[in-house]
């Protein structure tokens, strides 16, 4: 649970120009869900947390010091008779009163306890009328309800440094803002530099003020410097230094930047690991104070990874700025002729946005389709359905989807392909058949993912190109996203959004004449998908995948003759900024060569994991491996040698496994393998050459999903995040709590119970406990998976809409509390839950120690690679590492007359033998 320090109005800015009222409403609701609401009030007790803003006041005796306080009910029951009282004795009279956070105007009656609904953040104004002089004192408060223990006091968060003086003194009201808007400053890669801004207003007397930053009572491996800044631009007035002394007149509002240069791992512990900025007057008394939490982005104390040297013969095809312009020009020509102004996004293979172009008249937002079943019962359970989203985000998402699901040598998928494999039946619209094999993949590559790279060139210049990048809306099933190829090599993707709702294709048997798709196809001319690997030549489970309803006969122009970017008629449109993805000032950008340091994926020829098919590893901007094979945290944790063995064995199995989605038939698959420790911390990631990029994030999601649901803290974490209704539903479904450590869940089993019918595909049966009912469930609203990250998505979309990177979602997903004792302080599901097969919990002698996840090919292939990788590694190691004990696997549970599957390995799995049935009995 991160703590919001703001009690102000999050949505006062005009965001869309269009359907802003609806969008704002939906987003508010989304955020509320994200903060944890909508649970049935089963428990009698609840949990509250609190904050105060500002954190310091200095007044004259007789005056009142006021501040705003917020109590958030983080539990699942209504907090009754919630109140605030000072816990530190000072000569002052205390009062409190509720406020309207939109206006900061008092509401209700002073000093009257109030009920707070679950998930609600109630704002207050507090006032301390001083009656005698006292030196700066940290005043603690008791924020409590009759059915909730008092929120713990956190220095710099919910206490108030208060002084009363005989004469007027400076009274610096200081507010800190971080780029992630979560009250936390993130230091990239342990040794990078994080920054945050502090805005001040001196509401007291003028004086010379000395500003300094420190980490309070704890020593942290960080070097802090600061500067006064130009308020309008944020630029330093002087080089940053340890302290800054400046004269602050009464009423002045100077601003400052504080830089934190990391020199080691700092776990996420917002209660203790903080940076305090103090404002001292000429008498060295602290007259202003603010603070932020401090964390390094790679908080596990691991040895730095090796630096990889990209292959000297690396000469992959790449999108040049001219190519990007050409693609856009082709779309603009066709769109102009059709009178359908469009928003166009081009990305490279690892998701770097190379350009976003909006034609004049293109809609700024287009809504997600309504729930096609018309349920739409309440917005709370309708997820993203009907929500207006920025078309730029939709276009980027579509481009990334096509680029991420495709490969150079095996398969080329479009967003229409994605649509076919994420719905309630495969094929959509039929009966009896189980859900699409990648049901849930739409909620991967999330904007809050801790794995994905964010475009933030201030924090890290390499982030402009380095992938895998996040996607604003996950993955898209809205037709109008295609991969782009040059010389038969995958170089990126194009996404177009011009009209109609952002949707999936519910009827794959007709031609829906999608304008988006026709326009996107126009962009691919000259960058055509090789026919031999197109989705419509690939068969999964006997069913041919779809690629495009549009074909070149649909064009009303000849896109190939459009000419380059310069040929676009003046006034047709322009490049646009998309906060967090693309700055138009960059112009048309070049993609990076897959396998280069710039792409963030470099092949490891060391043979440490595999020498016959050297894996690609994720690297930072200096080509240093981001996730070298590491040891986990805690007693009995996975050792470095065990991580290496797990990666090696899974990889070895993968290199001979028959692909389900690659042509020609009989090819070897290409997947990504992720291993995590018991806290969800990444211990190692290896991705095979030409593996689809989406599998990197998804494999980690699967590993963490298996871990989280198998852990002892699953149920309690869900409850703490306001999602206890899913925990309760699952317990009711199976007759006992099932996310409390007594059941070992595979990602496949979790998927089974996260479908809108159980058993999956049987329309007449009730939904699985992690899903919404069949009437309510859609690819845009599917129950726990979305609800875990709906708040994050709401924050992110807000930041995109408002163009405010500071409002963006933090770089980890969900409002789940971190596992007890986790050194990272991060939620396990820091890149979201995944609900299709390919993840397994790892046990040592029956004790849960981690998870392994695989993604990138057919779900059965993913499943087998993870299952046998774990099994074989365990057999070879002899250290007790291995599969979950059979007796506690999820396949022992019966709900609604059926037990979920734990693992299902494919037919004819290996290309080098005709062995069958490799997983039985293991």
């Amino acid at each position, binding site marked *: 649970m991160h703590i919001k320090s703001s009690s102000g109005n999050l949505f006062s800015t005009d965001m869309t120009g269009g359907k802003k009222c609806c969008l704002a409403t939906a987003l508010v609701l989304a955020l509320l869900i994200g903060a944890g609401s909508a649970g049935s009030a089963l428990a009698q007790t609840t949990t509250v947390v609190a904050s105060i803003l500002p954190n310091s006041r200095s007044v004259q005796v007789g005056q009142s010091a006021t501040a705003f306080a917020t109590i958030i009910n983080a539990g699942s029951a209504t907090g009754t008779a919630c109140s605030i009282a000072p816990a530190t004795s000072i000569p002052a009279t205390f009062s409190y009163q509720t406020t309207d956070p939109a206006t900061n105007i008092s509401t209700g009656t002073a000093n009257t306890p109030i009920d707070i609904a679950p998930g609600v953040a109630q704002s207050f104004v507090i006032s301390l009328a001083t009656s005698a002089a006292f030196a700066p004192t940290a005043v603690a408060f008791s924020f409590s309800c009759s059915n909730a223990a008092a929120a713990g006091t956190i220095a710099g968060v919910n206490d108030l440094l208060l002084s009363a003086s005989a004469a007027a003194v400076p009274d610096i009201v200081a507010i800190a803002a971080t780029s992630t808007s979560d009250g936390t400053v993130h230091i990239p890669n342990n040794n990078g530099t994080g920054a945050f801004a502090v805005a001040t207003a001196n509401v007291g007397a003028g004086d010379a003020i000395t500003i300094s930053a420190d980490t309070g009572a704890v020593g942290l491996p960080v070097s802090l410097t600061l500067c006064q800044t130009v308020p309008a631009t944020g630029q330093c007035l002087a080089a940053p230094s340890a302290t800054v002394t400046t004269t602050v007149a009464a009423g002045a509002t100077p601003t400052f930047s504080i830089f934190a240069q990391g020199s080691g791992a700092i776990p996420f512990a917002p209660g203790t690991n903080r940076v305090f900025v103090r404002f001292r007057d000429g008498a060295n008394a602290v007259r202003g104070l603010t603070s932020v939490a401090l964390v390094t982005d790679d908080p596990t104390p691991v040895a730095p990874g090796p630096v990889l040297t990209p292959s000297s013969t690396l000469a992959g095809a790449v999108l040049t700025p001219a190519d990007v312009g050409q693609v856009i020009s082709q779309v603009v020509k066709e769109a102009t002729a059709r009178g359908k102004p469009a928003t166009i996004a081009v990305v490279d293979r690892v998701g770097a946005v190379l350009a976003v172009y909006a034609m004049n008249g293109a809609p700024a937002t287009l809504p997600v389709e309504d729930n096609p079943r018309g349920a739409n019962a309440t917005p709370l359970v309708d997820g993203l359905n009907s929500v207006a989203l920025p078309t730029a985000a939709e276009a980027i998402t579509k481009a990334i989807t096509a680029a991420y699901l495709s490969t150079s040598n095996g398969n080329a998928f479009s967003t229409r392909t994605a649509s076919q494999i994420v719905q309630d039946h495969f*094929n959509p619209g*039929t*009966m*009896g*058949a*189980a859900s699409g094999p990648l049901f849930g993949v739409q909620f991967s590559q999330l904007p809050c993912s801790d794995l994905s790279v964010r475009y933030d060139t201030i924090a890290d210049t390499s982030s402009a190109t380095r992938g895998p990048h996040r996607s604003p809306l996950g993955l898209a099933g809205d037709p109008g996203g295609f991969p782009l190829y040059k010389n038969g090599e995958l170089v990126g993707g194009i996404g177009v959004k011009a009209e109609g709702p952002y949707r999936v294709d519910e009827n794959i*048997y007709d031609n829906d004449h999608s304008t988006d798709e026709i326009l996107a196809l126009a962009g691919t001319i000259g960058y055509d998908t090789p026919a031999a690997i197109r989705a*419509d*030549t*690939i*068969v*999964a*489970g*006997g*069913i*041919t995948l779809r690629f495009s309803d549009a074909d070149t006969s649909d064009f009303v122009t000849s896109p190939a003759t459009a000419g380059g970017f310069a040929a676009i008629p003046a006034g047709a449109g322009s490049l646009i900024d998309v906060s967090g993805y693309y700055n138009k000032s960059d112009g048309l950008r070049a993609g990076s060569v897959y396998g280069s340091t710039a792409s963030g994926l470099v092949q490891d020829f060391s043979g440490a994991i595999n020498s016959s098919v050297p894996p690609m590893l994720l690297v930072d901007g200096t080509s240093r491996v981001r996730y070298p094979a590491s040891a986990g945290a805690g007693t009995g944790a996975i050792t470095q040698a065990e991580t290496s063995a797990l990666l090696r064995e899974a990889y070895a199995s993968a290199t001979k496994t*028959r*692909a*389900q*989605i*690659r042509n*020609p*038939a*009989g090819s070897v698959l290409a997947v990504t393998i992720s291993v995590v420790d018991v806290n969800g911390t990444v211990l190692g990631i290896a991705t095979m050459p030409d593996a689809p990029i989406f599998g990197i994030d998804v494999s980690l999601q699967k590993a963490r999903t298996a871990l989280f649901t198998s852990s002892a803290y699953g149920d309690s974490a869900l409850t703490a995040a306001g999602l206890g209704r899913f925990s309760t539903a699952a317990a009711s479904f199976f007759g006992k709590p099932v996310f409390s450590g007594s059941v070992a869940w595979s990602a496949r089993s979790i998927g*089974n119970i996260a479908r809108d019918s159980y*058993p*999956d*595909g*049987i329309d*007449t*049966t009730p939904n699985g406990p992690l899903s919404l009912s069949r009437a309510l469930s859609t690819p845009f609203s599917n129950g726990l998976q979305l609800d875990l990250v709906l708040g994050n998505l709401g924050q992110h979309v807000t930041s995109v809409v408002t163009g405010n990177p500071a409002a963006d979602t933090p770089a980890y997903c969900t409002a789940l509390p971190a596992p007890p004792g986790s050194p990272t302080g991060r939620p396990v599901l820091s890149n979201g839950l995944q609900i299709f097969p390919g993840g397994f919990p790892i046990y040592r002698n029956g004790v849960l120690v981690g998870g392994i996840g695989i993604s990138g090919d*057919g779900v*059965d292939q993913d499943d087998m690679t993870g*299952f046998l990788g774990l099994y074989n590694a365990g057999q070879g190691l002899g250290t007790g590492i291995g599969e979950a004990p*059979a007796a506690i*696997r999820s*396949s*022992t549970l019966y709900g*609604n*007359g*059926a*037990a*979920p*599957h*734990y*693992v*299902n*390995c*494919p*037919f*004819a799995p290996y290309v080098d033998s*005709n062995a*069958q*049935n*490799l*997983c*039985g*009995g*293991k």
Partner: protein
Amino acid sequence: MRARSLFFAALSAVAFAGTAAAQDEFQKPGAVIQGPVEPQNPGALPPPSPDAEYREIPVPDRVRIMDALGVPDDPLNPYHQSTLKGDRPVFDDWYVVLGAVLDTLYEPRTVPVPENVVSTNRQLSNDQFGRPRQTFFAQTLIPTFTIIKGDTTFMPPEYEFTVTPAVKFTHLGVEELGIADVNPAKGRNRNSGFVGFQEAFLDYHIRNVSDRYDFDSVRVGIQPMNVDFRGFLFQDQQLGIRFFGDRANNRFQYNLAYFRRIEKDTNSGFNDLSKDLRRDDIFIANLFVQDLPVTGFTSEFSVIHNRNHETGFHYDTNGFQVRPAVLGFDAPHAYDVTYFGLNGDGHFGRLNLTESFYYAVGKDSVNELSGKKADISAFFVALEPSIDFDWIRLRGSFLYSSGDDNPRDNTETGFDAINENPQFAGADSSYWIREGIPLIGGGGVALSGPNSLIPALRGSKDEGQSNFINPGLLLIGVGADLDILPELRLSLNANHLSFDSTKVLEQLRQQGPIRNDIGWDMSVTANWRPFDTQNMIFRASGAVLVPGDGFKDLLASEASDKLYYSVVLNLILAY
């Protein structure tokens, strides 16, 4: 059916009478006319002199002679004269024929089956293939009611009304979920009962066209139809209108027929009249010519057109999608296909021969692997030579059904029948023919449907559409029928099976290469007729499939995949 045998008995009686009475008029072309035939019956009583005096005793009519002789009507004994068996009219020249068949079948077998994809009933069952054992039991009662008008002894009846309801109870027990029903929560057993109508027709004798009762008739309603000698293309009881008759003393027989297919009940295979008729029409024109090219061999020339415009979705009783087949694009499609057939049955000297050749040509609105429309061009050939040595008949079997070696092009070259029910190479004793084998992991289709030879990859044999992108089949086999006792026949069959082309399988399974060898199918059948009649038949058969490399590439079982077996115990009681 009893009604048909009566009918054919009447025809042959007529034919015999004609041959004896006017031999030269009906002498076969080219045959040398012999002199008068000398009796070859030394010691027999001489025939009465033409001049002998006769004493005439009036009798009521021919059907009551037995009464006069003191043999009473016995409705329970079909071998006595029986009013219920059409031996005596019930009114004027209206006859009633009743019949009933009670068929009891018990069939333990092993078949490769998928482990259900979403649910399991066993821990550590972690692969695609489940346990193969199954038990099938069926109890069938088929009563027949027929009313005939006409002097049935001497000429074809003028009218015939027949109604054959059929009642069937089946039990299927399997080891895996999602087999008996699409919903795995429904468990591993299925009991099902159904009443269908297998016959309900009116037969009207339009006219006789010669003194030998060559005739034209029309039959309207649900009626049996088999368009060739061995049920290779279409054998079924379906709703239609059929004109038929013969010429030249039965040496030419013809059929002109139109059928619109009735939906079948999934578990009984019976006609389900509660559902709309299928949008599937069959037009049949055929001509049988006796003694072509040689005496003792009958040739059939046929043109059959199948127009299928079933462009909706159809699910079977157990919830599985059967139309369109879950195969490739899974797209509803229509096809029009014409079969040109040349079939023959008879003997060349001592060599018995049955042959069948079909060429199929037509158009398919969607090739399910290319997603585009396609032409159909496929063929089928089957030969069964046999020769008799006393009580032993030795048989050879050869069959080739063309496969599609380029399933994504615009010509579909896999042969498929309309509704086959092959009496060939061991027929329903053969493992491959008898059992439905699912193409696990390759869509919701059967590699080979029940009672079929062609690996047609259909969603369902009874309810699905024909599929002309299939791997085809090459069968080479030998067999023997041993009449060990008059009551006991033993049949032995050994067939080697292979696919013609596995390209379509490789694409459906995204697997390659898949080899051609299906394996050896070996069976033995004992038919015991304790009373030398068809009224009680006990059949026991056992078959094994020894999988070849291609089969092993495709399918396996959790317990053992050394071989698959099928055992049939069948008792048929007929009245």
